[in-house]
């Protein structure tokens, strides 16, 4: 092994892959059979980079050679950068040796498009196949589906990979046309649709024969880039909701655009990464998936953007003051989940614990409720509760004054001591 050459390739191809934010290694249920290597179940983040993102998988491109010229992408054809390509064996060796040392949960393999979609996809599949069949590797494998790849290759990919994903890249078709003239949305939707059908069919088969081979057991996900094109949050969340509903996606990832290229179609190079907005979109995404919120409760025609100062759950609460206060000793779980300051776990604890007696402030605080937020919206087994008739706006100001979030767009004036 030529260590120096491999190091150089790894640096180039990891650097090029890092803008894909998907990191999950969960949702699969691959067991270690016949004393092989590895398993995949709940997902583990093995490390965290200095930007605070998790490192769970060996996330690399097979190559950064690409025939496409997408404006937002570092690997685009017209960009003058160092190019490299791994061999199949190199990727296999890296994956196995990193995995044995407990550095990673598995492999996330993507690629620039060389020659054509099928040619590229075939090589990705080859690597996954080799890991599974020759090395008895049961760790997590996430393969990127190359837009336009044939159904046969997608089927084979599903047999070896835990998760597959096609990146939508831009929230809307117009955005895509503007920045990625070589790509078209239909090429992305087609493999998604094929996978959806494959996964549904596999679930049916599994019910009949337990031994039916797995097909992408961790489902599929996608990614949209935020802030490169002028879409508003309503359009972005609307698109996410559409794909969750119609393609059974496990996750939609939102990637704040990092200006890496000068192009008059894109935000200027010195533009800040929209990290706050990205964070708010993830919060909204969580509300849709775990808290029973509908997309039009979070964003609407009158509220097309998420409030950057406060999280979307608090935003919904102060727009809907008529439903509060909620009595946490009586309200149903779905209503308790809607209270700012109460998360899924504490909501479940409350519902379990109140069977044994009415709960007071101290008890729910112990269960993990953020009282500073929740106190404006709930009553419990106590005489002290918010008696003032506060408007949503009052509450927002109170909560903002108390919070020290680094996300605050307009910092309240700090009191000076002298």
């Amino acid at each position, binding site marked *: *092994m030529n*260590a120096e050459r*491999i*190091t150089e390739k*790894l*640096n180039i191809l*990891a*650097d090029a*892959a*890092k*803008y894909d934010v998907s990191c999950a290694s969960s949702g699969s249920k691959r*067991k*270690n059979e016949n*004393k*092989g*290597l*590895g*398993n995949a179940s709940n997902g*583990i*983040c*093995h*490390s*965290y*980079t*200095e*930007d*605070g*993102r*998790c*490192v769970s998988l*060996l*996330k690399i491109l097979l190559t950064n050679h690409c025939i496409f010229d997408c404006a937002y992408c570092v690997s685009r054809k017209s960009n003058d950068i160092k190019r490299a390509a791994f061999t199949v064996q190199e990727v296999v060796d*890296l994956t196995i*040796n*990193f995995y*044995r*040392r*407990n*550095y990673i949960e598995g492999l996330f393999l993507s690629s620039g498009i060389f020659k054509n979609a099928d040619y590229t996809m075939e090589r990705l599949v080859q690597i996954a196949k080799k890991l599974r069949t020759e090395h*008895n590797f049961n760790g997590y494998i996430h393969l990127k589906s190359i837009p336009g790849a044939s159904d046969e290759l997608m089927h084979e990919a599903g047999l070896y990979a835990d998760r597959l994903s096609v990146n939508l890249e831009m929230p809307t078709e117009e955005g895509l046309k503007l920045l990625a003239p070589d790509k078209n949305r239909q090429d992305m939707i087609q493999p998604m649709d094929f996978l959806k059908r494959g996964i549904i069919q596999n679930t049916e088969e599994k019910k009949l024969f337990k031994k039916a081979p797995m097909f992408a057991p961790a489902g599929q996900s996608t990614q949209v880039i935020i802030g490169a094109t002028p879409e508003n949050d309503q359009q972005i969340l609307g698109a996410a909701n559409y794909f969750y509903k119609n393609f059974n996606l496990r996750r939609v990832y939102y990637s*704040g655009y*990092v200006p890496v290229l000068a192009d008059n179609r894109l935000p200027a190079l010195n533009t800040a*990464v929209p*990290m706050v907005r990205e964070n708010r979109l993830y919060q909204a995404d969580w509300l849709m998936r775990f808290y029973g919120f509908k997309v039009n409760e979070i964003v609407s025609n009158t509220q097309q953007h998420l409030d950057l100062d406060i999280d979307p759950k608090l935003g919904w609460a102060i727009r809907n003051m008529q439903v509060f206060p909620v009595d946490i000793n009586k309200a149903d779980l779905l209503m308790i989940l809607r209270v700012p300051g109460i998360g899924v776990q504490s909501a479940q*604890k409350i519902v*379990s*614990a*109140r*069977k*044994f*007696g009415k*709960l007071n402030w101290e*008890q729910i605080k*112990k*269960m993990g409720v953020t009282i500073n937020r929740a106190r404006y919206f709930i009553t419990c087994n106590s005489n002290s509760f918010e008696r003032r008739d506060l408007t949503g706006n009052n509450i927002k100001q109170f909560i903002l004054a108390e919070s020290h979030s*680094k996300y605050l767009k307009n910092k309240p004036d700090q009191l000076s001591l002298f």
Partner: protein
Amino acid sequence: MTTTLLYDGTFEGLLTAIFEIYERKLIYVKLQQGEWHNTALFNEVLPVITDSTRANRVLKALHQKLSSDGLQRLYIAHTADIKNEDDILVGYIRHVFDTSQNIEEDYGNKYMMRVSEIVRMMRREKHRMEAFVRFQKLQDGTFYAAIEPDFNVLPLLRRHFKSRYADQKWMIYDTKRNYALYYDLHDAEFVSIDFTDNTKAGNTIAAYTEDEEVYQHLWKNYFKSVNIASRKNTKLHVRHIPKRYWKHLTEKI
């Protein structure tokens, strides 16, 4: 008057102590680990002699009143080996026996809540160790890792590592508690070792296989390459990997 029960720190010992409490109809009790010293002037001290028959009777009774999950949580909280939490465990068990219904979800009760908290701390530490173990390949083919967890989580790691790394020999050594978990391709067992100076760091490096250094180097490089400098967020970074874990993390050394 408060009676102090002294026990040997084992789970069986804890259950025996419970037996004593009920047999002697004690009301105010304090549980402590350790040897008996005649120093307490005012309190009554009762040394508990661990007895498996008595412990089993208590265990059987607990089985009847708790779900297997509830019992496991009690066991995990005890394994944690956190100082001065023994009374919480006694409170938990007494609350179980003194109430007619199953009360393991009674989070309004301080004992139930505290045990649930300890279990959460333990599970988090277990999960962290599953992530932060960094094996180094030694010349004899064994993959070796040292850890220093806050709580005693090594017993909880056995299943995960055994099912994941079934085709390689490995050892995870808890340097704080001086014992290890060793897998020899057949079974994973706890071994107590006291590494003396001649087997410390320097010698481990000498015992590496040839490519160990290459892969450590590649991993460090990879870790640097995936960082996006314009998104730097040190606070978040340190929250996810607290500094006390860094010395065993290849990429942070």
